[in-house]
């Protein structure tokens, strides 16, 4: 399974929940698969999906799923220590780890070589870290949402992308409709 297939498998789980989705192809693929107002698409700013997700989870009580990638987590690696030291029981960080920079041409990342993001997360102090194979991602995500504990899931999948259109929704519209969902009870 590649990232697109992992995203497709979790659509029924994330439906109606607050989702912060990583820049580039992950957001474009998710937008094509299942556009919903409770998904915040990042149109720029590589590396900050986990930080935006944590800030959102700390500020309000509804569950928050941040969908990140291995390359993006590597560019903001200290985020794992911030997450560990400010645990939000309503926060799930899903790292789709395909070992490559998918949006830029599948160049390999260090997470696909010697670096284990699950081990880094544990070393940073994250207490509920699950590494799973791509096919088990939806079940792991469902369990994490039901656990009532801050969780980090590292889903190991194959690299590769599908052809998707860019997101045409203006950023302030993405933000506005997302904030209305936060206020209205998405993910409740």
């Amino acid at each position, binding site marked *: 399974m590649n990232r697109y297939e992992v995203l497709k498998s979790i659509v029924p789980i994330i439906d109606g929940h607050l989702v912060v989705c990583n820049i580039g192809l992950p957001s474009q693929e998710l937008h094509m698969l299942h556009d919903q107002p409770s998904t915040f698409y990042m149109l720029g700013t590589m590396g900050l*999906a986990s*930080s*935006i997700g944590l800030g*959102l989870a*700390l500020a309000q009580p509804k569950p928050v799923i941040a969908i990140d990638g291995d390359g993006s987590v590597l560019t*903001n690696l*200290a*985020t794992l220590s911030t997450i560990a030291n400010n645990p939000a029981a309503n926060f799930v960080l899903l790292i789709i780890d395909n070992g490559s920079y998918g949006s830029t041409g599948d160049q390999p990342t260090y997470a696909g070589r010697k670096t284990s993001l699950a081990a880094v997360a544990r070393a940073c102090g994250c207490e509920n870290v699950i590494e799973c194979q791509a096919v088990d991602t939806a079940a792991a995500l469902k369990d994490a949402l039901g656990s009532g504990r801050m969780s980090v899931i590292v889903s190991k999948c194959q690299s590769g992308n599908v052809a998707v259109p860019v997101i045409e929704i203006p*950023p302030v519209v993405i933000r506005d409709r997302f904030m209305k969902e936060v206020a209205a009870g998405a993910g409740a």
Partner: protein
Amino acid sequence: MAGPLSQKVVDDLTANRIGFVTSVPCKQLAGVIEALDTRPEILHVPCNKEDEGMGLCAGAYMGGKRPAIVMQNTALGVTINTLATLIQFYQIPLPMLISYRGEVGEKVACQVEMALHTKALLNQLLIPTYHFSKAEQIEELDAILKHTEMCKKPTAILMDARFWKGET
């Protein structure tokens, strides 16, 4: 011990219903950071790097808490992409309370190097910028925070060594 200027900074934050603050420490801001931790109305989440902190602020804002970041001007360079593509692009109000190192009163020569670029970078980014060099300028902070919320932009409040003289 947080002095009266530091307390006033945090008083103005709470009066403007700012409920989420992230910070990277600076010696000049030690009193502000200490005061933040004494206020139950403010969730203070220290970050490791200022662009990470702006991500936290963006999330907190969308979660219903008005944010602010406490940082040093030397970090401005690492935040430029985040300011442009997250804070400005999505129109998120973000007061940046910035220790303005390298201005008159500075003791460390290297700090002057980034001070030379600070206002030029902020100007290039079209970020409303306010420079406090006298203690009485603290009286402007409340209006600046209101202006930030009104226009939904990042704003920079630069506070130099002369402003903090007597406090640190």
